[in-house]
């Protein structure tokens, strides 16, 4: 609504300049991922790296989408100036979602280098897996995954349409227009729906059969990633003078959200760990066990430090959240930590617990 207020001379350039770089950033990310994967050699590593980076890229977009949805839901006023950026970030979901196609193709082509459950012989041996065969099979998986981009596209469209069409409506009917409200409700249900998909998605993909507990992590982690990316982009645009409306207060608010959701991520992650540590039931502890042996312990510790301890103290003070370079620094750290987080979630399960690969 900043547009309504300040009819900026370069509003067209604005969206063009934002969307362009973002798309290329996203694509660049994927290309790099693909290169890494190809260099690293064998099929499992290729696919796990593909999966990992695909998830990372889409997580950023999902987080931004979540942010936009929440802002609409709560009808927040402060975020107007940054919301457009978040919307642009969430648009990346569309193209990135298509990059899941290779995984699906591989799945249908009966490759079990990524998912054990796609190996019929293996499933026969494992009673737990065979119990889940109705759910964990290639066609079902494909259908569900295809469902995901479709939903996401619809959601994005709805968000954008809502955004575009809201202005005239507001003018016509100032007081709480029912149409608006319905759209809000629609967003709400979409929001619910798509978080659900994200979560389920992670269950099967990142954790395979063992982790049926780690999934609530994914929602805060998406939010954190989205916020970090959003903050970075906003800071960058502000630096080159494209977003003059963003004041220190906005940065402060973004910083607070980032800080808050980062703590929330830590809270969820710790709850998971504590419960599993405490109950000590082998079928669950195994998941963490593989992540504290063979060099994964170091990765775990790095994750704890980068994703929680350091940002916790680094972003604690008011000054840090209001100082653009500091905020940018911690956003980068958190984004990196998020990448490591996904790496840590996926790799030990897919690529085997032997050791973190360092050959890339």
């Amino acid at each position, binding site marked *: 609504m900043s547009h309504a207020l300040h009819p900026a001379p370069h509003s067209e350039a604005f969206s063009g300049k934002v969307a362009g770089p973002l798309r290329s950033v996203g694509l660049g990310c994927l290309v790099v991922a693909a290169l890494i994967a190809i260099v690293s050699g064998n099929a499992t590593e290729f696919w796990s790296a593909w999966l990992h980076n695909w998830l990372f890229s889409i997580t950023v977009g999902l987080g931004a989408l979540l942010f936009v949805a929440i802002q609409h839901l709560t009808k927040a006023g402060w975020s107007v100036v940054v919301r457009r950026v978040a919307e642009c970030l969430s648009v990346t979901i569309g193209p990135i979602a298509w990059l899941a196609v290779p995984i699906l193709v591989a799945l249908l082509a009966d490759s079990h280098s990524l998912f054990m459950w796609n190996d019929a012989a293996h499933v026969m041996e494992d009673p737990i897996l065979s119990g889940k065969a109705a759910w964990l099979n290639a066609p079902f998986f494909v259908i569900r995954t295809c469902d995901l981009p479709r939903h996401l596209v619809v959601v994005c469209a709805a968000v954008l349409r809502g955004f575009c069409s809201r202005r005239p409506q507001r003018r016509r009917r*100032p007081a*709480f227009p029912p149409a608006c409200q319905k759209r809000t409700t629609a967003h709400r249900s979409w929001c619910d729906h798509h978080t659900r998909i994200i979560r389920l998605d992670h269950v099967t993909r990142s954790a395979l059969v063992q982790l*049926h507990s780690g999934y609530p992590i994914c929602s805060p982690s998406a939010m954190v990633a989205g916020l970090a990316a959003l903050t970075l982009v906003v800071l960058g645009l502000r630096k080159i003078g494209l977003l003059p409306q963003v004041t220190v*207060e906005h940065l402060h608010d973004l910083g607070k959200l980032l800080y*808050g959701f980062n703590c929330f991520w830590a*809270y969820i992650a710790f*709850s998971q760990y504590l419960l599993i540590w405490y109950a000590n039931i082998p079928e669950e502890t195994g998941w963490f066990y593989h992540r504290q042996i063979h060099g994964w312990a170091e990765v775990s510790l790095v994750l704890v430090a980068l994703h929680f301890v350091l940002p916790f103290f680094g972003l604690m003070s008011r000054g840090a959240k209001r100082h653009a370079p500091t905020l940018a620094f911690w956003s980068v750290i958190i984004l990196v930590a998020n990448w490591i987080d996904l790496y840590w979630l996926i790799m030990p399960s897919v690529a085997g617990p032997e050791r973190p690969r360092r050959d890339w």
Partner: protein
Amino acid sequence: MSAVPIPTRTPSESLRPPLVDGEQTLSSITETVCSIVERPQTPRAWYIAFAISSSLTLMLFGLIGYLIATGIGVWGNNSPVFWGWPIVNFVFWVGIGHAGTLISAILFLFRQQWRTSINRFAEAMTIFAVTCAGIFPAIHVGRVWLVYWLAPYPNQMAMWPNFRSPLLWDVFAVSTYATVSLLFWYLGMIPDLATLRDRATSRVRQFAYGLFALGWTGSARQWHVLEKAYLLLAALATPLVLSVHTIVSFDFAVSHVPGWHTTIFPPYFVAGAVFSGFAMVVTLLVPARHLFGLKDLITPRHLDVMCRIILATSCMVGYAYATEFFTAWYSGNRFEQFAFLNRMQGPYAWAYWTMVTCNVLIPQLYWFKRFRTSPWLMVGVAICVNIGM
């Protein structure tokens, strides 16, 4: 957030319904609020209500006495249902308590200004709810007179409690929560008490309010420190409130009991707590607003927002129920699956389905504007929610 100058309001914001209705000035609001406590005579209805509640309280004390004299067996607990009744009450009340702190702290951090009409109210409710909650762990133990053994104090046995037990975490969490809620409540109330002190006409009131207002003068420096402290307390209370119900959920989730050992419990308990707490606030708020003539201060907009939050948390709780089922089915653990099937079909099926109806289905009525704007319909739904929890 005094330190942050309020950004110039955009027209879109000014389009929102105002936080108070009618032509209100600072003095008229003060007048409305203070007149409730400054009435020259206590209304008869108050005495009646007080008599009823105090006789119920006496009955409670009598029954607790009977419980302590006879044994925990009077509750009907058995093996394997060792906790049953007391734990249900404990978790329920702790959950109710959460709404107060949530309204005060989290909404404060999110700069939701509409909270100001109801936050004190909700905080008071929190303190009473936590008190209620605190009773249960104390009286539920087999030997109530030894309950102080939970505290780590130097003793002639030269031993310490077991810090690896979630129940001990509970002790720390609930007592911290009660203390911090009280501090938070009182800290926010100091300037109000000073207002009452300065408005008071009788000597006794002046003295009493003066004592509790601690000599507040409303100077800019005092406000500066108080606001900072309030912000910090809010920032502390927010993770605290999450942690309390998380730790309560650990009581269950660390165990081996199928259906309890679920890592979704911490966030799920917190959502449920907020859900039930808000419902309780609505349940109490609507009659209070009606009785004390606060309709201009607690406007339909407040109630509407409350209802939206209830609706949102209801969806979360519903989602958690669904996830539990999904996880049980997905895990392939027979015991887990059985525990959930049993909930749906076993002897507690009535409870289960009441719960689902009250917590997930009925709140969906809040999708309709009618239910969010008509106070009594709203209370009806809210009471259902309380029953459901």
